[in-house]
């Protein structure tokens, strides 16, 4: 027996009508609404009106879309961020090696290795002087990445992060203060900042604080740089 005020029940039912129309009411609510509709012509009319709106809105329009172009840009963005961060996460045994960090366009690292190989080939073709000039201008470590090349680390750097391009300087500073971090380098061309700690908190704590901000698009702890082996 329903002891509810009929007017209150009527208003409750009216609020639920859109979800009767889209078929997403719970079984209990559905029975309740349908029972009310049998008695209330106003709600039946409203239901019919909402159904007409639903029929129009639920029919997809032929909007021209280019998902592949967007996907390619996303792939490029991910690769740029990963390259900048120097992520070389340990392989997950549950993920086949050929599926890891691989996509149809080819990973950035594979492409870069191919570019590097091309550069070497061109240098050889042009003769040793050209190759020497290449070495002189690149006298530090290679400026390209291979599957095993780690990105250079800045002193004290523990985290790399990317912020929304719309973030203002004051927002950026507030986020860094909140996470007890400071900028030691950046941004790179990919918009990556290298961050160091200002307080002796844990890196994970700072990461959690960073990731709690919507403006932070990416934040990862840096894999510690390997300690160079002592000379024999």
């Amino acid at each position, binding site marked *: 027996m329903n002891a509810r005020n*009929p007017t209150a029940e*009527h208003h409750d039912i*009216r*609020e*639920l009508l*859109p*979800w009767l*129309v*889209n*078929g*997403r*009411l719970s079984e209990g609510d559905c029975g309740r609404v349908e029972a009310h509709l049998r*008695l*209330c*012509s*106003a*709600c039946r*009319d*409203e239901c*019919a*009106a*909402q159904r*007409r*709106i*639903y029929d*129009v*809105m*639920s*029919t*997809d*329009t032929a*909007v021209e*879309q*280019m*998902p*592949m*172009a*967007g*996907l390619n*840009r*996303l*792939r490029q*963005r*991910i690769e740029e961020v990963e390259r900048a961060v120097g992520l070389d*996460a340990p392989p*997950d045994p*549950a*993920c086949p090696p050929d*599926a*890891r*960090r*691989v*996509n*149809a366009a080819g*990973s950035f690292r594979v492409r870069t290795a191919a570019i590097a190989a091309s550069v070497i080939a061109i240098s050889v073709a042009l003769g040793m002087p050209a190759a020497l000039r290449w070495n002189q201008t690149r006298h530090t470590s290679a400026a390209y990445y291979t599957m095993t090349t780690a990105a250079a680390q800045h002193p004290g750097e523990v985290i790399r992060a990317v912020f929304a391009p*719309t973030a203002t300087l004051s927002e950026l500073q507030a986020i860094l203060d909140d996470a007890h971090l400071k900028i030691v380098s950046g941004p790179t061309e990919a918009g990556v900042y290298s961050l160091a700690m200002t307080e002796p908190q844990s890196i994970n704590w700072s990461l959690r604080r960073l*990731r709690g901000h*919507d403006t932070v*698009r*990416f934040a990862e702890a840096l894999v510690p740089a390997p300690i160079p082996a002592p000379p024999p």
Partner: protein
Amino acid sequence: MPANIRQYSKQQDEELLSAVARGDNRALDTLYLGYHRRLARFLARISPRYETVEEIINDTFMVVWQHAKEFRGASRVSTWIIGIAYRIALKSLRGNDGLMRAQSSDTLPEESFDPTGSAELRDWIGHALNQLPLEQRLTMELAYHMGHSIDEIAQITGCPPGTVKARMFHAREKLRQHLPALGGIAATDIFNDSPSL
């Protein structure tokens, strides 16, 4: 068949997201292509610029890529992804006055729309929807275009179910003002809010 039909089952979505969490780019591609159309249509209600829509979609999947491992299955994958898109979209709009075609307050101009026999019903409704405050319009899109339940919309928008119902109710009330007739039927015949038990 409604446009909200899912291209992948709940289980497939969860498997794909697990693979994304393990760093599988191909799974991310599949998820992206599976959701692109739905998100694009949803976000087109927020911004008419395709570039903005695509930027929000890519920001969304950047977050998916970075945080897939944190998904615990408390909601459906679709709800989780659309919720991310919703928050990024709102943030994007609020940070960019130029995109605020969608108004989020109740300070709407008292604009009325009188569809004539030559106009398409879709255009009438599209025009009327554009007069709604942002949250109301998106709630309507989530319910009618994307076919979400009250609880799912509450999860996506991060507000209580009562707020979802209230937003939808106010959206319908405003549509009543902007759609004096729907398909040739007089408004009084379509929208009659007095109970007649």
